[in-house]
């Protein structure tokens, strides 16, 4: 397996998150659960923003548990603030490419153009976020992920503020990009429709407990009692 979470335990006050599951290379997995169930905590642990009290995270067998976020094979799209609004898209992507200086090196311009073209934003490099629509901003954030060229992509509900049609469009775009680049993707969502659309397999987080990944359709069509309670009439 590519990404392994081996008996992870992370605590925040009285809250405790436990997780043991694997994700294959190039796989797309949804992380479902109610607000406060621990979905974002799980992502924080994988991304390196939160250190687990116990357990090991491995990437292709290498222990990455103690690595800082920037040294993990992981890029992440947050719910908001995925780019610096005072910088142009080019400057944002330059920072993603060269975090020590933010200065473009030989070949970087081409990489930026390629990344922007991949998400349908050719010619947008000189723009700032304030000059772009919500959908374009999301695409620009995805371009940042692409130029970072890391094999694992974590999505922490980055399209939650978009309308349903635009959100679907973005999920399809991410799915296409991920398949094209061979990215392993974990999508946090509280909306089962997102999981059905995007992820063949899903895990369910309930009160800090993460279930093993299952087939998304099977999970949602015949949910366990806790998930059924969460889904309600959906």
């Amino acid at each position, binding site marked *: 397996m590519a990404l392994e979470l081996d008996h992870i335990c992370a605590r925040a006050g009285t809250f405790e998150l436990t997780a043991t599951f694997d994700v294959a290379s190039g796989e797309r997995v949804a992380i479902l659960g109610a607000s406060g169930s621990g979905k974002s905590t799980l992502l924080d642990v994988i991304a390196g923003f939160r250190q687990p009290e116990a357990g090991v995270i491995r990437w292709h067998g290498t222990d990455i548990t103690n690595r*800082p976020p*920037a040294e993990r094979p992981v890029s992440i799209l947050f719910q908001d603030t*995925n780019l610096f609004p*005072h910088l142009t898209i080019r400057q944002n992507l330059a920072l993603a490419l060269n975090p020590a200086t933010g200065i473009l090196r030989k070949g970087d311009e081409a990489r930026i153009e390629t990344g922007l073209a991949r998400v349908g934003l050719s010619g947008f490099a000189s723009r700032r976020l304030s000059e772009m629509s919500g959908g374009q901003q999301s695409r620009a954030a995805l371009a940042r992920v692409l130029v970072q060229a890391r094999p694992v992509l974590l999505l922490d509900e980055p399209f939650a503020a978009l309308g349903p049609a635009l959100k679907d469009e973005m999920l399809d775009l991410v799915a296409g990009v991920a398949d094209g680049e061979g990215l392993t993707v974990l999508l946090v969502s509280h909306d089962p429709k997102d999981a059905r659309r995007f992820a063949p397999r899903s895990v369910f987080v309930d009160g800090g407990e993460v279930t093993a990944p299952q087939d998304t359709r099977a999970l949602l069509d015949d949910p366990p009692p806790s998930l059924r309670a969460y889904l309600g009439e959906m």
Partner: protein
Amino acid sequence: MATRPFSITVSIIAALCVAGLVIGPVTAVVLRAEAFSGFTPADGQALRFTLVQATLSAALSVLFAIPLARALARRQFIGRRLLVALLGAPFILPVIVAVLGLLAVFGQSGLLNRLLAPLGVPEVQIYGLHGVVLAHVFFNLPLATRLILQGWLAIPAEQFRLAATLGMRPRAMWRSIERPMLQRIVPGAFAVIFVICLSSFAVALTLGGGPRATTLELAIYQSMRFDFDLGRAAVLGLLQLGLALTAGLIALRLTSLPVAAQGLDRPVPRWDRTDGIAIGTDTLWIVLAAVFLLTPLAMVTLNGLAGITTLGASVWQAAGHSILVALGSTALCLLWALPLASRWGEWLGLAGIALSPLVLGIGLFLIVRPFANPFELALYVTATVNAFVSLPFALRILRPEAEAVRTEYTRLSQALGLSGWAWLRWVLVPRLRRPLGFAAGLTAALSMGDLGVIALFADPDRATLPLKVYQLMGAYRMEQAAGGALLLLLLSLTLFWVFDRGGRVGSGT
């Protein structure tokens, strides 16, 4: 692991510099003092005078600010925005300029005495307690007005609408809406002004003096300048430190109002303002305040226009010194403030208010004396002390935005793995551009107008412009002093404008 606005190391270095600047000079003064000289009756008098003038100044400033702020809160008139903006000006107004303006109005041959003379009214004297208090009210009435006006504008408009629908009379509205707000705001405003007036030096130097009108700061100056009595300076300095620290902590607890208040240019919509008496009293307060605040400035400008052409080379040289000192202290202050723009950094920066700049200057001179001629370093020491004194204001301006930037962008920066340099170059400085410009402008203007440490140590070749103006006043060359004051005013305002404007341009605000 995490990318931070500044690495812990940089913040610790900045904190150690500030702490060293407090502990080093104080220790040097205390050690050099050999033995504390006793607490003389004159010291007791200085302590009493300091407390009395600070109490009176704060009380009168707040007392007059209440009706003025109320009038500004509920009246809309042409020039209101300008008047409110001008209320911010005294903060960056050089003390010596204000003193010259007040002398031109309230002095022996000032405007007021010339108007009163034909009526046979006895001559008004400005020197002494009332002169010191008058100058402090001139400086702090605008500050108090802005603080209280902010409180008035923070009252939700719905409360006034409700009062109108209930048919509340002005007295009831005062009791149920305005008085509770004032009870929250006024103690903080009083405390802030009290602290500011506690460390009054230049005002007491120019309008006080003599055994009956000497502040602790002035007593420290006199003990050094005339007696070179380090023991007495140390005792007074420590007394001043304890006093200012206590008052400063109380003030900090009582108020958390920002230096740069926003949105003061809009009146409160209310339905009790058509009453004839209300219109009359509001107009009276606004006119009186405008006359009180603007006449001295107008007099400085008028007198200065005649004098500015007569300025000698030494005044222009002093102006050059002042600009260099202002730029140096601005750079140093921001270098400290950026890594210290946090809660604990702001507490540390409080030392800038609590510690007597004169004690600081004396200590620094004692420290450098074994290695160099301290008089040759007067301008460097002045720049350092000015940076230190401005630090609390710079931190108050920078901290909210710096914390917001940290909250908003730390995770993204961690995810990208930004280096400390990249964070500074691409995130922190661009995002803080506007408050940085404001803080730089404020520091430069404060430093430009400072008449503190430099008065102790500068030789004629190293005088700054405020000191030069003071020396011209002392030599009764009032025309040249007025010219120098106008030059000082223009330079202070220009420096403030250039930095503040520079911060705003391209900041998206």
